[in-house]
């Protein structure tokens, strides 16, 4: 029994998975997050979804695998990573009336080379004692009244570089540099850890406010990460920030069909499933993300915590284009030092 199991592993390692209908998904997203969706898809269609979670170097691996690559669908978080795949010529155009109907034009490539699948907002976590704090702008994070009161993860993390890139598009490099310096001056501790640590640090009085992704609020409060995290989630208040005179900064998770996809048809079918009402609902349920499809349900835990979401008008592509400049700016102001 043991020996056959071992031999099975050896065989699987040597020849790779095989089945009649299958689709190979390379993802920078932890597969546990999308597993419920993929399982639902397999149950419905009978198609096996093979996955590998390649957090760093996805594009390099697919490029190296070349013409005989196994990858069908490449899935990433952060629009910059998605557009990178297109820029490196690793994606192929897809024409699908289903995808075009479901994903708003601002959240997909005009030529069908990338599609957003889910959305998250960068929101404010705050100390519950700040009862007067009802609204805040991203620009307002630089207000000296927050000196020593702000917690953030690394400025080099894609979630933060995207936000800084967004500020760059809105206000230009000089104002953004001044803003970032002022934000740095407000930091209570060195940028480190993840978004959840911001909530935990607010609870510990290390800081009063911080920025984190919207879905963590749902994840923490749902208690799925354990009672500790539920305490962190319940211990903070959450405010939906906006840019002055604009809307909230959102980022996406999305996917492309690999240029060399051996199972192209199946790849497109998987994407079409992922933007269906059912899957979009599951995104909200499983991950507390916002659906990209209009009218798909949003988890009540999110709506009750955050209220309505007004997305800022700056196109995601513009933000992605400024990502590198934002990253260099983080170095320049020594944000993480």
């Amino acid at each position, binding site marked *: 029994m043991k020996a056959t199991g071992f031999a099975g592993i050896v065989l699987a390692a040597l020849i790779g998975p095989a089945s009649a209908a299958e689709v190979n998904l390379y993802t920078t997203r932890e597969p546990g997050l999308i597993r419920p969706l993929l399982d639902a898809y397999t149950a419905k269609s009978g198609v096996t979804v093979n996955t590998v979670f390649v957090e760093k*170097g996805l594009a390099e*691996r697919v490029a190296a695998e070349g013409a005989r690559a196994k990858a069908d669908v490449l899935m990433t978080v952060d629009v910059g990573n998605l557009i990178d795949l297109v820029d490196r010529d690793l994606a192929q155009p897809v024409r699908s009336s289903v995808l075009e109907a479901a994903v708003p034009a601002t959240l997909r490539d005009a030529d069908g080379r990338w599609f957003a699948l889910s959305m998250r907002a960068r929101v404010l976590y705050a100390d519950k004692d700040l009862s007067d704090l009802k609204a805040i702008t991203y620009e307002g994070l630089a207000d000296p009244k927050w000196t020593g009161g702000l917690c953030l993860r*690394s400025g080099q993390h894609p979630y933060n570089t995207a936000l800084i890139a967004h500020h760059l598009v809105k206000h230009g490099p000089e104002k953004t540099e001044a803003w970032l310096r002022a934000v740095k001056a407000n930091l209570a501790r060195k*940028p480190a850890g993840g*978004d959840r640590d911001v909530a935990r640090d607010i609870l*510990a009085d290390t800081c009063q406010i911080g920025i984190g992704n919207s879905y*963590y609020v749902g994840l923490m409060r749902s208690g799925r990460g354990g009672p500790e995290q539920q305490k962190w989630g319940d211990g903070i208040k959450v405010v939906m920030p906006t840019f002055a005179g604009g809307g909230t900064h959102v980022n996406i998770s999305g996917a492309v069909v690999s240029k060399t996809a051996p199972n192209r048809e199946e790849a497109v079918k998987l994407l079409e499933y992922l933007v269906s009402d059912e899957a979009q609902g599951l995104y909200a349920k499983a991950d507390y993300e916002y659906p990209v499809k209009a009218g798909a349900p949003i988890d009540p835990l999110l709506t009750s915590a955050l209220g309505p979401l007004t997305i800022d008008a700056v196109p995601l592509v513009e933000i992605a284009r400024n990502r590198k400049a934002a*990253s260099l700016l983080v170095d320049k102001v020594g944000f993480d030092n």
Partner: protein
Amino acid sequence: MTGAASALSPTVRPRALAWSAAALALCALVLSPVVALVVAAGEGSGALWPHLVAHVLPQALWDTGLLLAGVGALVIVLGAGSAWLVAAYEFPGRRLLEAGLLLPMAVPTYIIAFAYLDLMHPIGPVQTTLRDMLGYARPRDLVLPELRSLPGCILLLGFVLYPYVYLPTRALFLMQAANLIEAARMLGRSPSATFFRIALPMARPAIALGASLALMEALNDIGAAEFLGVRTLTVQVYATWVNRSDLAGAAQIALVMLVAVVALVAVERWARAGRGFAGTAQRPRRLARRRLTGFRAWGALGLGLMPVAIGFAIPASYLVHSALRRVMRSGLPETILAEIGHTLLYAGVATVIAAALGFVVAAGPGLLSRRFGRALIRVASLGYALPGAILAIGLLGPLALADATLAAGTMQLFGVAPALIGLGTGGALVTAYLVRFLAVSIGTCEAGLGRVPRSLPDAGRMLGRGPGATLARVQLPLAWPAVVSGALLVFVDCVKELPATLLLRPLNVETLATHLYGEAARGTYEDGTVAALLIVAVGLVPVVVLLRLGTPRADHADRRLTEPRP
């Protein structure tokens, strides 16, 4: 005597040639990712450098330098100090301590960072209890130093990496330094003078080897450093590569780091050149331990237990506690058995190959021209100096090239191309482990062979045995404990390895490390603790074996030293 003579000897020549060819192939394998990096670096411009010089490097160099200095000092103090304690003194609990001191080796740096951040956080169990005891109401009433800092990172890395120094240093105290140490004692030197004037200088090669391995681990660490907010050069390589999609720039920084590391290693080698301490063919005495009594004995035990507690017992208990809670709440993760299987399979295969290659490469200087053999050792050890993910990225090109060559060949012969074999199979993973950790196996084998009195292989050769036979019949049995400990170190390293595993593993393959990383990446630490605990547990198996090998085998080796087989 073995050097030039054997290379010229006509009877040995064909075998030596075959050996050289194999050695060169190995060098090519290890060098291939470096070459790929050079190519990648060449594709970029130098445009990044003014920015790096102005805004990144000063801080990164400073942080990296302090981190290495701090971790280096800590691993030497903890490693050599504890090795001396258990080698030179007898006290209640000593044997247990001797074993326990190795345990932190089973804890990966990223796991210790996760565990301690949870434990030491202002609202974590330690500070909460402390506040309750002192009667403080809120966290701000009692602010302790922040763990997410350079000193915090140094402490955590130092306490899990010191066994790299402890292991070889203890062996050296036990086996080799005994005669001189006892002479010093008999001449009335104080214990501290004996330690600082005799034992420590003699242990320098072992300390240097261990410290350099520990420092490589510290330099390549990405999980703990990033998590604790320390901006090392390695973190900057990642930032350049991942956040700016600038592989060329990342490769340029990585190459500069590589050059710096190679230069440092060369300086270290040069500084201890000619200071090898090969044993004599006479039976070396075991060091007689001084018996400690009363409070001294308890003091010694307490002192020795401190690194075990901080580096192992505390984080491991925390993991046990969290994992138990996880299992009570929602049972064992369904995929865990398959993950254990994958982990053991890939790490196991890589370990066996690394041990065999490591021994042969380490024996190179005795087999062939000494200079060629030593050059080979340096090249084959290079993979260890590269950050894991950079090495994995560098391997993508060569693996793809191998695939393309193979496909072209089979197309010509059979008219069909096979699926990718180099990339996206277990082969890629094993190759990565091998390139990365061969240095560990070589290093320990080198140390083991260095302890074999030079007169023995020379005698073998004079009695008409070829170099291969001498190696197999004389040196291998004598250096066997070192070969096994090297292999076990490689095994633990492979089980813990993360960045290359993340990038290169096949579809649907999770190892314990990637499982844990996935859970940490989506913030469900609790779900990851079972995997974390298993990684630590898997790491413990070799530690236990190391110990069983350690003391009794040392006696065994003593006997073999005096009674070499005909």
